[in-house]
């Protein structure tokens, strides 16, 4: 807060400096510098400085450290500065030699990518539907707010408890299997319901649909209702209006929601671990295991590769829509 105040007072100072006659300006270099720092042009930099500093210290610096460490050497109990590519070689070892069968890293990324696509498609479908209902079918603001709160109910308990509570529901002796058997739909309990790809995707959808709803709802609530009336007047059917008016105008929300979901799924290992019964690999899990065995440089190299992969996905998504322009 203090910095923000200083920023403001600097701007005040800048304004007075500009308004004063030029005689005071032609002094020492320090004066020139002071003028530069307090001039109107410098004001935005001062205003951005606090956040930039926080960002540099808590984001850029750790990131740089991670990249640097990924080139270091390590043994069981220490890491030593170096500039070697061993860790990257190790990350991709066997990836060429073992073709056509996939190496550990490719296999893990492929599996993660599969979860990304499934979770993304399902959360998008659900999130869009819910947001559409909230934005266009619920007229009163109070009802919208109330329903929004209902959407957040799953977030009232911790992530881990939410996931563990699936076990008595989907397990071999769980409620769903109990129902299926008493209803005569199956004889044997269905084991694919839990500790499987199905349960992982289910948990992701449960956890992350909210992250789709919010930005899409936000975009939708800005759509001018007159546009929909115009579409109707021009003879568009309900689906045509949806596809040609609502979807294009909701694109920024869709992309922001997608970025949320995809990045969270890419880095997740807790959900995949618990819901997949620890049987399904994820990059996060690989990194966690390496960290717990004190293989910091190797874990850093894996993290750099993961970061690159996520950035590529995000770059691809933002190419579809210029989020900044649309906002």
């Amino acid at each position, binding site marked *: 807060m203090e910095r923000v105040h200083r920023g403001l007072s600097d701007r005040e100072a800048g304004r007075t400096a500009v308004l004063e006659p030029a005689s005071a300006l032609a002094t020492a270099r320090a004066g020139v510098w002071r003028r530069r720092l307090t001039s109107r042009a410098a004001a935005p930099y001062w205003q951005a400085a606090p956040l930039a500093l926080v960002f540099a210290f808590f984001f850029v610096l750790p990131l740089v450290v991670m990249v640097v460490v990924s080139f270091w050497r390590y043994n*069981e*109990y*220490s890491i030593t500065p170096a500039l070697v590519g061993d860790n990257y070689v*190790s990350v991709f070892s066997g990836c060429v030699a073992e073709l056509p069968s996939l190496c*550990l890293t490719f*296999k*893990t990324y492929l*599996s993660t990518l599969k979860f990304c696509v499934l979770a993304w498609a399902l959360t998008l479908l659900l999130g869009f539907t819910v947001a559409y209902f909230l934005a266009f079918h619920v007229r009163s603001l109070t009802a919208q707010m109330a329903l929004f709160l209902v959407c957040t109910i799953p977030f009232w308990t911790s992530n*881990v408890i939410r996931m*563990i509570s699936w*076990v*008595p529901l989907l*397990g*071999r*002796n*769980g409620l769903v299997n109990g129902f299926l058997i008493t209803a005569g739909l199956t004889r044997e309990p269905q*084991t694919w319901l*839990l*500790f499987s790809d199905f349960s992982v995707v289910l948990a992701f959808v449960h956890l992350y649909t909210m992250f789709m709803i919010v930005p899409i709802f936000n975009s939708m609530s800005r759509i001018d209702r007159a546009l929909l009336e115009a579409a109707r007047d021009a003879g568009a059917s309900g689906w045509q209006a949806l596809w040609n008016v609502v979807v294009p105008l909701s694109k920024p929300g869709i992309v922001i929601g997608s970025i949320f979901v995809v990045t969270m799924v890419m880095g997740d290992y807790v959900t995949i*671990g*618990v819901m997949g*019964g*620890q*049987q*399904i*690999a994820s990059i996060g*899990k*690989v990194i966690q*295991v*390496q*960290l*717990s*065995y*004190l*293989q910091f440089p190797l874990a850093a190299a894996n993290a750099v590769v993961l970061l690159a992969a996520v950035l590529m996905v995000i770059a691809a998504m933002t190419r579809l829509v210029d989020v900044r322009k649309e906002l």
Partner: protein
Amino acid sequence: MADTKRKTTVVTRRDVLKGAAAVTGTAILGAPAFISAQPVTLRYLGTAVNQSKEIAQKVKADLGIVIEYVPVTTDDVSKRIITQPASFDIADVEYFQLRKLIPSGNLIGMDASRIKYADRITPVFTRGEVAGKKVGDQGTAPKKVFYLEGKSSTKFSATPTQWITLIPTVYNADTLGIRPDLIKRPIGSWSELLNAEFKGKSSILNIPSIGIMDAAMVVESLGLHKYQDKGNMTKAEIDLTTKALIDAKKSGQFRAFWKDFNESVNLMASGEVVIQSMWSPAVTKVRSMGVPCIYQPLKEGYRAWAAGFGLPKTLSGKKLDAAYDFINWFLSGWAGAFLNRQGYYSAVLDTAKAQMEPYEWAYWMEGKPAEKDIKAPDGTLLEKAGTVRDGGSFEARMGAVACWNAVMDENDYMVRKWNEFIAA
């Protein structure tokens, strides 16, 4: 990491009164009162399972030392010791981790002459013997890493010296846990873990260094391979072991893997799994939920583990003295009895015996049927009168140890292959 939260011992009004009484008492006797007036705090780094509130309270009452628990996971204990050696005053470490920790120089040798009961520590640690007989020493057996060449040495000594790496706190012999009500037949061998009869109903723990040893017990029991040392495999042996695991996984043998205590309890209690690697307190927990569960002794023997107190090199002065006082107190019986009653074993058996009821000692340590109901330290019923402990006596259980938790020379390669197994 929710389990890294700090637990601080709360000082109640009664403690304050007790402290005040102690101060007055010592002051009257003319002893230096400032020691009691300013209690020393020891930051105790370890896993939550070993950090009982009761022990901290008893130490406070007996010695006036405040124990501040820093509960983290086993892996994080090593990470802390290596990266933040000044963040704790005493560490509860597993012996197998020493092969990583001692070379870092962050732990120092403890002076045996300051440990009152040093010569009465069970020979399981000092010589690798139970009742005069050698037990299995594959893996990082405690006797291999028990002594250091010197106080600040980073080399282990094969022969006894004055410098001890860790003073043992708890140790035990691990085996498979089973659900007798769902299996309905006797189980006697590690090979049953991969028996097709339990397809989709078995589990193994997903902690690479321990899981691979359980897998090796299975592989050897199936007759696929005889290891030179299960705790120090060659690359070829690691390949062979993980291949056996991958084949089993692909055929749908495993229901799930588990990583922490509670997961293993859930898997077993819910009936998702009927046979799996397990830890002793988890079996007790399942049983206390009213679900039948046996910690099954197997003919190939047990995989053992042991933990102990280590001191950081940064410790000095009053804190160092307090740490030695605490360790001496720990070995003097009360804590040992407390741990024995949970199904662990304590380092100095005779001092613990003096603090236990004869019927308790007979049940927990001698493998005899319980004369009376067996209760946990908090008073809950563990076993009804007449029950016999799974695996029997101390000598029968610790005497049948086949291997110890370990860090392999090919650790990196093993972790890599284990990750491939998880991804398969």
